[in-house]
């Protein structure tokens, strides 16, 4: 003979899974996130490695007028494409073709004459700021600037003036921000979203099996069966929790597969988690799903209709986001207490592990217990409340 809560759990699970559209949508939402996230990171990698890989292509009109400049551009790995004279519309059309040229350089007709006469010789740089080739354009500008400075120095030297007079200050730039640290922040914030299936996968099932059952008036029949109040609650809780666990585990595994497959090294990052680590993350995330389901059952059973419970729980859905938002807003450093706050603890743990930090055993233990203990307490409370007559009486 099966215990009553197992019977109830299996029946609720079967009933929920028969609602194919809801299950399909949940699955879609769960699996879509890691995939979208993979596509986004692929784009970041692609963008940051493009210039090194391909070099820069630059269309030049009238290249023959400035051979030295062309030679310098080539030295900087910029490919010069000699182009026939174009009007404005022609240049715009050329720049419209994305990924072709970083810009168009047009040397004016009188360039040679002005240059020889030491008058400012005009070079036009045409670019399309909407085409995201900003870094490439700056490289071209740097070459132009360096060329200009070189020529100026040579001319001053010819007049007996030290070129140093032209440079009263010297600016040396040091950028400590690397692509890796920028992307790490971005990936970190994406990682914290990975735990949301714990909250939304079991939600509609939790509502349907409590407030829904009450609304349909089948709860009275169930309560008249030889099953204790805590067995009914436990059955429904385990059902909602198992859906949340399935969603959460699928999401984490898929995210792990996507992140291991992406060439993160190209932007100086690594995904240092292996299958054992991700297994551990999944295991300590179990109580989070159990806690979410317990909270949803305990709240939804007090609502008199499906709709009432739904609006109540959608507010509760925002709750788990709160600690993460507060921490990132106040810019707090990772501390031990964070592992004692459910949801925040899982997010912190995964983020630290993805950085390759050896966190030790205590954070795992804290993460597990900080969600498991409240979950049990809430279920016990809900089971105790269920004994009340008000759940039998009409809506």
């Amino acid at each position, binding site marked *: 003979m099966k215990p009553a809560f197992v*019977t109830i759990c299996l029946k609720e699970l079967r009933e929920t899974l028969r609602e194919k559209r809801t299950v399909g949508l949940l699955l879609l939402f769960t699996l879509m996130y890691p995939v979208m996230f993979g596509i986004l990171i692929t784009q970041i990698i692609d963008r940051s490695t493009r210039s090194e890989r391909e070099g820069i292509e630059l269309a030049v009109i009238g290249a023959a007028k400035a051979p030295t400049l062309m030679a310098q551009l080539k030295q900087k790995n910029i490919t010069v494409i000699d182009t026939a004279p174009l009007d404005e519309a022609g240049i715009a059309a050329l720049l419209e073709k994305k990924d072709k040229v970083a810009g168009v350089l047009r040397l004016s007709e009188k360039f040679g004459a002005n240059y020889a006469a030491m008058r400012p010789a005009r070079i036009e740089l045409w670019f399309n700021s909407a085409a995201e080739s900003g870094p490439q354009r700056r490289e071209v500008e740097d070459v132009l600037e360096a060329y200009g400075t070189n020529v100026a120095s040579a001319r001053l030297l010819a007049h007996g003036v030290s070129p140093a007079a032209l440079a009263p200050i010297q600016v040396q730039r040091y950028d400590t921000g690397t692509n890796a640290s920028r992307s790490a922040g971005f990936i970190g914030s994406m990682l914290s979203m990975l735990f949301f299936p714990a909250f939304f996968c079991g939600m509609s099932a939790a509502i349907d099996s409590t407030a829904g059952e009450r609304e349909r008036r*089948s709860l009275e*029949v169930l309560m*008249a*069966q*030889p*099953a204790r109040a805590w067995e009914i609650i436990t059955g429904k809780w385990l059902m909602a929790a198992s859906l949340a666990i399935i969603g959460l585990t699928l999401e984490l595994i898929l995210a792990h597969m996507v992140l291991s497959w992406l060439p993160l090294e190209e932007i100086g990052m690594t995904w240092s988690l292996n299958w054992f680590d991700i297994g551990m993350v999944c295991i300590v995330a179990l109580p989070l799903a159990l806690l979410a389901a317990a909270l949803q059952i305990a709240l939804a059973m007090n609502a008199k209709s499906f709709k009432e419970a739904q609006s109540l729980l959608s507010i509760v859905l925002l709750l788990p986001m709160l600690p993460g938002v507060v921490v990132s807003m106040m810019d707090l450093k990772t501390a031990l207490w964070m592992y004692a706050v459910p949801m925040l603890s899982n997010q912190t743990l995964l983020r630290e592990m993805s950085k390759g930090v050896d966190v030790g055993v205590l954070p795992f233990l804290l993460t597990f217990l900080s969600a498991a203990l409240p979950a049990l307490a809430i279920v016990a409370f809900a089971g105790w409340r269920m004994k009340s007559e008000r759940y039998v009486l009409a809506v």
Partner: protein
Amino acid sequence: MIEVNDVRKQFGDVQALGGVSFSARDGQITALLGPNGAGKTTLLRTLVGLLKRDHGTISVDGVDPERDPLTVRRNIGFLTDQFGLYERLSTREYLTYFGELNGMGGAALKTRIDEVSELLSMDDILERRTKGFSQGQRIKVALARTLLHRPRNLLLDEPSRGLDVMSTRALRRALTALRADGCCVIMATHVMQEVTALCDDVIVIAKGHTVAQGTPFELCRRTGIENLEDAFVSLVGEEGIAA
């Protein structure tokens, strides 16, 4: 055997039961008569221990439903005014669920489901999902659930509503068979014909009080009225009808 002695129950300011006493014997079908709002549903809920009484004693085969609700419920088949079907489950799955909750399982449960289904002539809807069932089909499924675990006591709240002639006959046959087996059946109903044809004992309640208990014949004799319906109206009084 169900014995009830001076049971009272109050919801806020409303006195739902103001003193109900009766005894329903094994091997008898006892009718529970009363106008709408007389407290029939509250009484039945109190008998299975879903509601706690404020006063009085209840004994179901010698067990107090408030002390040991699980033992009482194992021996009671309770048909409520709501059927409590699950639209996404088939009739067989529905019956299996409640059978397992009552400690049955395996081949024995399967055989019993077929038995009950034959008894209520509902083979045609056994494998169908309960969504879209007619009123009569719904009540058959709920009745099957009530009878499934062979309870010694049956509490039926208007079991014949919405049933066609054939099904009503099937229900009567089933109830007569249960009586022959020595079950204790309490049946709330509004159909006087049914009471006359089926019931050995009648309890009349109005406004939460027991007004009378006896065989249909005794009630007629006591009021001096030949027709049971008129006798019932006379017992309940104008007050009870207004409520």
